[in-house]
């Protein structure tokens, strides 16, 4: 290329000079001579250009022939050499370093509440009017060896660090298509309990999840996942866990030395594809364990979850619609009898452009045995002492096993994802509890993530 440019420039320069010369020398003969010379020069340059192009084409063809011959003659050798020949890029240098994948996700939310002390919120939900840190999640993930991988997630808040998850997963082929996870895990109970904050579609956690699962149900345990050999995807999960969790639903029994008092969680997950575009994930969950209110008292949790996704790939590849819904029912034995609580949520999200989605959520919890509030919302400790989980009496905050009454909530959400790694979300929420007056809240959430591209589960 360089030569061709040079010739073109030369050509232009010569031409310009000669042309200038014509104007200066006014003599007719000289002009004719000059013109002739220019013509000749132009002709020569043209020939040179053509030659050069021919040569370039020839050398290109030769090179390609040589390349093809190489691949044809001894392809085995070429393939072997390929690996060693490859230039080391910047990223390649880190592959051999055995570092785990490290990622950080920061979630913040500006909030406005119409009430002073908003009720019914999860730990990482915005607490009060102002700017809230929801969570900084730090994850370290990687393969341990050919048999296990290890995933750990730490949630950092203003008050300290919580180990959200830290578990090993078997990678081997085991009999009955078994996969074992062991450690601290978000339990396979429904769907929202498995979703980290950055995968959730709304700023706040749905009420049934808050009331029955806490911020998340993440006991220490061992989980067995079987892939049932059927034409469709059917996974059965069973786990045994220690019942010490943050939510009051479960707690350690006084007579803890009893296998029957541990926390057992079961989940059955079905996946159906009606077409390329429409698929359903349906599940049922059951959890049972001691709740610590009195020796031998248990809580049972029943759950149904549904996730449906419509994504027409052919016409509008970036438009999709999904519905996520769960129903949870809780039975708890307490000193004064039995509690019956239930709740559900349903959320519909429409992604209308590559970077935009909007959604609506309705969530509620209700109870057959409301805890009575007397003297203007002040809790009569004697009245409700039977409901209080033992573990949480010792802690700074008291968590109550049981509900005050029905609570409904409506949320509207609009999300803009500048890229896959950042998010701005606006949400408006109306909360309608029977034991308090109607309240409103507006959130503006910001989320940023750095680190390798994490793979999302379905």
């Amino acid at each position, binding site marked *: 290329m360089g030569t061709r440019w040079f010739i073109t420039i030369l050509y232009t320069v010569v031409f310009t000079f000669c042309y200038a010369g014509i104007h200066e020398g006014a003599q007719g003969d000289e002009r004719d001579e000059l013109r002739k010379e220019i013509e000749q020069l132009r002709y020569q340059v043209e020939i040179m250009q053509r030659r050069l192009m021919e040569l370039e084409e020839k050398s290109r063809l030769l090179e*390609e022939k040589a*390349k*093809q011959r190489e*691949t*044809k003659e001894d*392809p*085995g050798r*070429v*393939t072997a*050499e*390929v*690996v060693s*020949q*490859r*230039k080391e*890029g*910047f*990223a*390649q240098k880190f592959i051999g370093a055995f570092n785990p994948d490290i990622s950080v996700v920061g979630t913040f939310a500006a909030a406005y509440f119409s009430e002073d002390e908003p009720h019914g919120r999860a730990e990482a939900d915005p607490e009060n009017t102002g700017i809230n840190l929801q969570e900084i999640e730090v994850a370290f993930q990687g*393969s341990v060896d*050919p048999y296990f*991988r290890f995933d750990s997630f730490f949630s950092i808040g203003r008050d300290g660090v919580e180990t959200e998850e830290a578990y090993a*997963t*078997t*990678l*081997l*082929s*085991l009999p009955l*298509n*078994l*996969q074992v996870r062991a450690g601290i895990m978000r339990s396979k109970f429904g769907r929202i309990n498995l979703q980290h904050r950055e995968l959730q579609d709304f700023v706040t956690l749905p009420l049934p999840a808050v009331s029955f699962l806490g911020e998340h149900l993440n006991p220490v345990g061992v989980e067995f996942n079987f*892939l049932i050999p059927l034409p*469709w*995807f059917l*996974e059965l999960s069973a786990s045994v866990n220690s019942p010490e969790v943050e939510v009051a639903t479960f707690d350690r029994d006084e007579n803890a030395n009893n296998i029957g008092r541990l926390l057992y969680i079961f989940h059955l*997950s079905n*996946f159906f*594809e009606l077409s*390329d575009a429409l*698929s359903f*994930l349906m599940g049922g969950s059951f959890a049972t364990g001691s709740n610590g209110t009195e020796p031998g008292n248990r809580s049972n949790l029943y759950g149904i979850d549904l996730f449906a*996704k419509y*994504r027409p*790939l*052919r016409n509008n*590849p*970036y438009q999709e619609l999904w519905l996520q819904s769960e129903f949870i029912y809780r039975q708890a034995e307490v000193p004064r009898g039995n509690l019956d609580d239930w709740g559900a949520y349903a959320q519909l999200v429409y992604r209308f452009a*590559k*970077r935009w989605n909007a959604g609506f959520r309705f969530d509620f919890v209700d109870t057959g045995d409301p805890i009575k509030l007397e003297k203007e919302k002040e809790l009569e400790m004697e009245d409700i002492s039977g409901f209080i989980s033992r573990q949480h009496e010792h802690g700074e905050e008291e968590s109550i096993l049981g509900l005050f009454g029905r609570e409904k909530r409506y949320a509207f959400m609009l999300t803009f994802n500048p*890229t*896959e*790694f950042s998010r701005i979300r606006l949400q408006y929420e109306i909360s309608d509890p029977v034991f308090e007056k109607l309240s409103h809240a507006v959130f503006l959430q910001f989320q940023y993530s*750095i680190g*390798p*591209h*994490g*793979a*999302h*589960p*379905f």
Partner: protein
Amino acid sequence: MGIYGFVRVLAFFALISIPALDVVAKVRIVSSIPNLASIAEEIGEERVEVKSLAKGYQDPHFVDPKPSFVLELNRADLLLYNGLDLEVAWLPVLITGARNSKILPGALGHLDCSTLISNILEMPTARVDRSMGDIHPFGNPHYTLDPRNGIAIAEGIAERLKQIDPNNASFYEERLRDFQERLAAKIKEWEKRLAPYRGTEIVTYHKSWVYFSNWAGFKEVGYVEPKPGIPPSPSYVAELVGKIREMKVRLVIAEPYYPHKTPALVAKKAGASFLVLPSSVGAREGIDTYFDLFEVIVDEVVSILGRGDKNN
């Protein structure tokens, strides 16, 4: 029925089950993208069963990791994938869920096809970060769009098949030779048809045609995306239109799954032609093999550039 009768019945079942076993013993290949699946089909033919997870009309960067894919991978003998982080958002979670040690990294049934390619383009040599857009830190992953790479990929796949299924080694070898010869001949033919248009300046939507351009001798002078994965702003579009007009770019290319409004508008305003080109087997009806794919690409490119010649 005495003991002999029983043995005879057993022997009978054993006999009829031998061919049945043969049928069952097909090598199960799961490919992340259809282009690799198509090459594997050419090599294995009826002795393999090939399934592609991503569809040809789908953006391979953003595939939903459906649980049904876990089932496919659970039963797979060989996993083929593009690598260079193309499938990073969806494939790792599926491999973990598959409970199949045959397809784990380092195993015989795990083939990252990018390791077969000698000439990876756009390999960053300096530090990269995401302020440059969603770039691939290991180099541009769209190498299947250079048909010459098909020869190396076929080689690698055949090599693995020979090791996984040594009984059919000679068959795979023969199929490989045949495929490579046919592809080499076709490449020559396509190159001849594209030769008059070498040096053509083009603009593409995403940086996904660099291997194709490298082969066809096209010069990519701009992209509709200002940075990989980042949609263009109006001011960038205006700038691009000016650039295309000034450089007299004749062709704007986008895959079927990218938005067409902006690139079509850019082309129209700048007086260039806009072409929706398939980049995958299965992108359209009638593109069933790796050969079909390039046949269509070359046909469309040549016809649109040829038309331009007549107009001039």
